[in-house]
C-alpha cells in the first residue's frame, strides 16, 4: 500500500507538471494581456505599457515566464498583476469565504440524494419513482441561473427576506443569535442552488446502483432466509451499492473552484469562483494560473484519496 501511494504520488506530480505547462501556455498564448485591459485610457502611453510588460516579465520567453511563475508560487512571492497583493493569502481568504458554501452544498447533495435514490430504487415503477425521475431530469435540464432568479423572486416575495450577499446590511448591531440566523439564511439559498444539479444527478446514480445490487443473488438469499426487508435494503444491499460512491469523493474537491462561478456571481458571494471570474476579467494571469494549479492539485489528491479509500472499503481490491 505504501509503495502504491508513493508511486501514484510520483505519477501525479508528473501529471501536475504537464497540467501547469498547458495552463500556462493557454493563458499566455491566447491574445489579450494585462496591458490591454483598459485600451481606451488616454493616460496609458506606450512607455507605460512597456513598463508594465517589463514588470510582469511579459517580454521574456515563455519558458522563463513559466519558471518565474513556479519559483514565485513555491516561495510564496507571487503577486497579483492587478493590485500587487500576494496571491496565496488572497486565495486563502476567498477560500475561507467559499468554504461554508461548499460544505453546505456537499452536505445537501449527499444528504438528500441517497434517501431519494434508495426510495426510488426500492419502489421501482411506482408513482414516486417515476415522479422523482421526471423531477430529476427537469432539475438537470434547467439553466442554473434561470432557476436561481425564479427562486430569489419567490423567496423575496413570499418571505420578504433578503438573500443576496453574506449578511443583511444594517444587522451589525443585532444580537449574536439574529446575526447567526441571518448568516445561515443567506447561506442556505445559494447552497441549495448549487446543490440542485448534484442532487438530481447523484440520486439517479444511487437509484441505478441500488437497482443493480437489489437484483443480485445475495439479496434474494437474504430475503429467502427471512431477513427483515429494512435490513436487506440498508444492511445488505446499500453497503454494496455504496462502493462506487467512494470514488466520487475524489471529484468533490475541484468543485470548490469551478462549480461556483455562476452562483457566487448571482448571490454576490465573494468566494473563489468570484475571485477567478474577476481575475479572468482583469487578465490577472498569476491568479488564474494559481487557481487552476490548486484545482489540479485538488483533483489529483481527490483521485488518490478515492483510490486508497476504494482499497480500504473493498477487500477485493489490493494494490501491491
Amino acid at each position, binding site marked *: 500500500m505504501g509503495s502504491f501511494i508513493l508511486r501514484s504520488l510520483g505519477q501525479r506530480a508528473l501529471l501536475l507538471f504537464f497540467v501547469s505547462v498547458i495552463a500556462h501556455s493557454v493563458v499566455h498564448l491566447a491574445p489579450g494581456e494585462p496591458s490591454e485591459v483598459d485600451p481606451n485610457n488616454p493616460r496609458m502611453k506606450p512607455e507605460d505599457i512597456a513598463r508594465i510588460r517589463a514588470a510582469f516579465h511579459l517580454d521574456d520567453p515563455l519558458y522563463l515566464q513559466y519558471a518565474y511563475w513556479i519559483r514565485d508560487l513555491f516561495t510564496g512571492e507571487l503577486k497579483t498583476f492587478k493590485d500587487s497583493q500576494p496571491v496565496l493569502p488572497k486565495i486563502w481568504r476567498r477560500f475561507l469565504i467559499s468554504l461554508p458554501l461548499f460544505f453546505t452544498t456537499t452536505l445537501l447533495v449527499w444528504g438528500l440524494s441517497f434517501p431519494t435514490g434508495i426510495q426510488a430504487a426500492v419502489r421501482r415503477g411506482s408513482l414516486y419513482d417515476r415522479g422523482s425521475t421526471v423531477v430529476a431530469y*427537469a432539475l438537470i*435540464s434547467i*439553466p442554473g441561473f*434561470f432557476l436561481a*432568479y425564479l427562486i430569489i423572486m419567490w423567496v423575496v416575495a413570499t418571505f420578504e427576506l433578503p438573500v443576496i450577499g453574506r449578511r443583511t446590511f444594517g444587522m451589525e448591531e443585532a444580537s449574536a443569535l439574529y446575526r447567526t440566523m441571518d448568516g445561515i439564511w443567506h447561506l442556505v439559498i445559494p447552497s441549495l442552488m448549487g446543490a440542485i444539479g448534484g442532487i438530481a444527478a447523484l440520486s439517479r446514480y444511487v437509484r441505478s446502483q441500488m437497482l443493480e445490487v437489489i437484483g443480485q443473488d445475495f439479496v434474494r438469499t437474504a430475503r429467502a432466509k427471512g431477513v427483515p426487508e429494512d435490513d436487506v435494503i440498508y444492511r445488505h444491499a446499500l453497503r454494496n451499492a455504496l462502493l462506487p460512491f467512494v470514488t466520487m469523493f475524489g471529484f468533490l474537491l475541484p468543485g470548490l473552484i469551478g462549480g461556483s462561478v455562476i452562483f457566487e456571481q448571482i448571490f454576490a458571494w465573494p468566494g473563489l469562483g468570484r475571485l477567478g471570474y474577476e481575475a479572468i476579467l482583469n487578465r490577472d494571469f498569476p491568479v488564474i494560473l494559481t487557481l*487552476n494549479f490548486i484545482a489540479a492539485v485538488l*483533483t489529483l489528491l481527490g483521485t488518490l484519496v478515492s483510490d486508497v479509500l476504494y482499497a480500504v472499503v473493498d477487500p477485493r481490491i489490493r494494490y501491491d
Partner: protein
Amino acid sequence: MAAPGDLGVTSGVEPPPSTSLAGEVWRLLRRDPLAMAGLGVLVLLLLAAVLGKLTTEVVVVFDPAAVRLPDKLLPPLSPPSPQVVAEGLAPATGRYLFGTDDLGRDVFARMLQGASVSLSIGFVAVGISVAIGILLGGLAGFYGNLRLGFITVDTLVMRFVDVMLCFPTFFLILTVVALLPPSIYNIMVVIGLTSWMGTARFVRAEFLALREQDFVVAAKALGLPERRIIFRHMVPNAVAPVLVSATIGVATAILTESALSFLGFGVQPPDATWGNILADGKGFIFDAPWLFFVPGIAIFAVVLAFNLVGEGLREALNPRLRRRP
C-alpha cells in the same frame, strides 16, 4: 453487439426481433413515453431551427434585427403600433407572438434565429468532442501496445486524458473564451476541446474488448487493411455508449453556452442565441417577464428533451435490457 442477443427469443409466440441494432433500439425506445416525448420536442426544434434559418437569413420573413423603438417592451400577442406598419417593419404574423424586447425587436424572430445558432453550437461542439474522443480512444484501444520510445501509445493517450481531466472545465472554458476574441466559433471549439475525455475512455474500453473478439480476429486473419478493420468493423460496434454521451453532451453544451452568456462571454450581439436572449432578459425580469421566461423555458424544454432521449437511448442500448423479450 455484433450479433444482437436474440438467442432466447426465437422460439415461442414473440415475433422474431429485427436483426439490426437500430431497429431493435427503435423498438425499445418507442416503449419509453418520456424518450418519445423528448424526441417529439427535438423534431419540433429541428424544424424550428431549419425554418428559422430560412426565414431569418435566406428569405427574410422575420427580421430579428429590425429595431422598432416605438414598439419596445410590448407583451406577447400585442399588435404592432400603426406608425411602424407604415415602414414595412411589422412582424409577418401580424402580431408579436412572444412580445418585443427593449429595442422593439421581435422576440419570436430572435428565438427563431437563435434556435439554429444554439443547436449548431451544441452539434458542432459535440461533433468536435466525439471526433477527438473516437480518434484518441481508438488509438489507445487499437494501437495501445505500440511503443514510442519508453512509453506505450496507451499510456501516452490515457495520461493526456488524465491531464485534461485535471482542469476545472467551466473555469477553463471561461478563461479561454474570455481571452480569445468573442466569436461563436471559438465557443463551439472550446466546448468541444474540453469535453472529449469521457468519449475517449468509452471508446478505448470498447476497443479493448472488441480487439479480442472473433470477428475482429477473423478480419485480421483475412488480411483486411487496418483502416477497414477499425472504421468498418470496430467503430460501428463501439459507438453505442458514444451516442448516449453525445446526446447528453448537446444538452450540456447548450447549457454551457447560456451560462457563458449570463457571465457576458457568450455569443455577442447582433447574433441571437437562446442563451444571450435569456441573459439580456434578466434585466427586465419585472418590467417584461416574457423576455426572461420565453428563452428560459425554451432552453429548459430542449435540454430536457435531449436528456430524456439520451437516457432512453442508454436504456435501449443496455444489452441486459435488450435480451429481455
